[in-house]
């Protein structure tokens, strides 16, 4: 260090550090906005697409501001709702129940695995290995299984099929959070006379809410967006949104405008859920406070 540094006043150093911190804070904010914009630009393309007529999708140069937005939008969204109306209902039922059931099953299971080391590492590994199965392996056998249970083309059938794939994910996501949680609080609770289950429910669970929120959010999204199994396991009684979307992509002739419209609408529940979940995902301060 050169001698100049030593003779500078404390005030200057603090001021400089503060300024650096402020600049860094603002530049990081700008960076965040940039990142979000980049990731959202394809989405904006889809949204503006829902305002376009067919010709505008295949124009050079690309159309960013649709010309006949007023008429095209109406037609597109009308068609989207016509094709996807039932899809919304069915998707909400299937994705909603699949998520709730998955979380209800996964959280206790992951706790047991994290805390009680049940089955050593074999059980968690088995659970994870479900995800290794290539989808094609699962389709035909599951189709046969559901058929035997008379669950083809039913909401329950699809919910069960989705739970099959989402359980491993949910278990592993929450397991990590439980493992990171120190046992002190629960041990203290046990000493105080709490039953193990109560300690789990009242102490552990609230502390891993970010993990549960993440697991729940993604279980919902995966179930909401799933197509392959839905397409094979359902016929006409159940028609989830992804299937409704493929109706707009029939063989010769994609109905681009309506497709964009329905895709936009289909993303809304997920976005709402995500915004709602932010509250639980971002905790930061509270954990430290409790420990202190």
């Amino acid at each position, binding site marked *: 260090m050169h001698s100049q540094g030593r003779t500078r006043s404390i005030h200057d150093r603090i001021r400089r550090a503060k300024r650096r911190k402020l600049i860094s804070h603002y530049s990081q*904010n700008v960076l965040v906005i940039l*990142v*979000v914009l980049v*990731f959202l630009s*394809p989405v904006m*393309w889809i949204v503006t697409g829902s305002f376009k007529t067919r010709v505008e999708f295949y*124009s*050079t140069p*690309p159309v*960013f501001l649709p010309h006949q937005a007023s008429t095209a939008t109406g037609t597109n969204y009308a068609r989207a709702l016509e094709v996807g109306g039932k899809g919304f209902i069915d998707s909400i039922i299937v994705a909603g129940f699949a998520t709730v059931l998955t979380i209800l099953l996964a959280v206790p*299971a992951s*706790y047991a*695995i994290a805390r*009680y080391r049940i089955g050593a*590492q074999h*059980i968690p*590994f088995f*659970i*994870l*290995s*479900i995800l*290794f*199965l*290539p989808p094609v*392996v699962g389709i*035909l*056998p*599951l189709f046969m299984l559901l058929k035997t249970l008379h669950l083809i083309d039913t909401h329950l059938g699809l919910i*069960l099929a989705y*739970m099959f794939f989402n*359980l491993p994910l949910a278990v592993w*996501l929450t397991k*990590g*959070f439980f*493992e*990171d949680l*120190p046992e002190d609080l629960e041990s203290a609770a046990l000493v105080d006379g709490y039953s*193990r*289950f109560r300690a789990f429910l009242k102490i552990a669970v609230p502390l891993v809410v970010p*993990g549960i*929120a*993440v697991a729940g959010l*993604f279980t919902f*999204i995966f179930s*909401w*967006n799933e*197509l*392959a199994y839905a397409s094979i396991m359902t016929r006409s009684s159940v028609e989830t949104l*992804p299937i409704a*979307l493929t109706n707009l992509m029939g063989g010769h002739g994609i109905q681009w405008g309506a497709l964009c419209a329905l*895709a936009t609408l*289909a*993303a809304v529940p997920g*976005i709402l859920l*995500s*915004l709602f979940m*932010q509250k639980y*995902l*971002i905790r930061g301060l509270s954990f*430290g406070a409790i420990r202190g």
Partner: protein
Amino acid sequence: MRRTLAEQFIHYFTPKKRIAIFMVAPTMLVLLLFAIYPLIFMFGNSFRAWQLTSVLPPKFVWFKTFGTLFSYGRYWNAFANTLILLAIGILVQSVLGLGIAMLLNRQFHGKRILTGLFLVPVMIVPVVSGTIWRLMLNSEFGPFNYLLGITVHWLGVTKAASMTAILMMDTWQWTPFVAMVLLAGLSAIPREVYEAADVDSASGWHVFTRVTLPLLRPIFGLVVLLRTIFIFRIYEPVSILTAGGPGSATESLSLLTYRTGFQFWNIGLSSAMSVIQVIFMILVAYLFLKFVVTGGRTRHA
């Protein structure tokens, strides 16, 4: 005092064990119920030559199917393609996801909205994403080339460009997932840890590598493992953007296995393919878990 068998049995199932079993049982039940049949189906059929649409009945050929598979160039080509996508994809998505998670892990105006919006790519049904990306990357009408002022032929012309396009779409769609999980992980790290580091006037980088990363390691390892599992199974980006073309230059394992099993109805061969893939994943996951996630996991001091 000798215990009876029954007493030993009850003694073994301590309250601790009982509650554990009770909590795990429903999950295991569902998984076993649904996993048994596919597993038997997969292993069983990998030993048969069975063409669903043939008049010839299925017959046991033991390891002959695997033999055919080992000399099936197209399969190994698909394997190589998938591994390339995997290696590059994991690298890019992890680094990018971590960077973004760090950026979001602060207090700032509109944090909730921006973070929520950031997840939108994951919300678009993959089939639609793929179809739209196809249009966006079109070198004639696509906005991608137009806005960047370049004329790259992304799809179907060269392997490099096509793989890049596939990776771009996959990265766009899944980095938010990585970032969200890491953000949740970062949120769980208590403030005190950072405050302690601050008092020691450690530099940002120092804090990051010595404090944050180690604490984040289990979650980070988990999300990398999960992405590995899913990129290994990549389907829509490949199927919709290039259909595996040109030729089979971008054909992925999932695509080939699906076609073999579900379009060619060669159940025997697709089962054998699946077996190899499952074994591969088991090895990768096992090694990964052993060395990355559990090794060096630190508890809070």
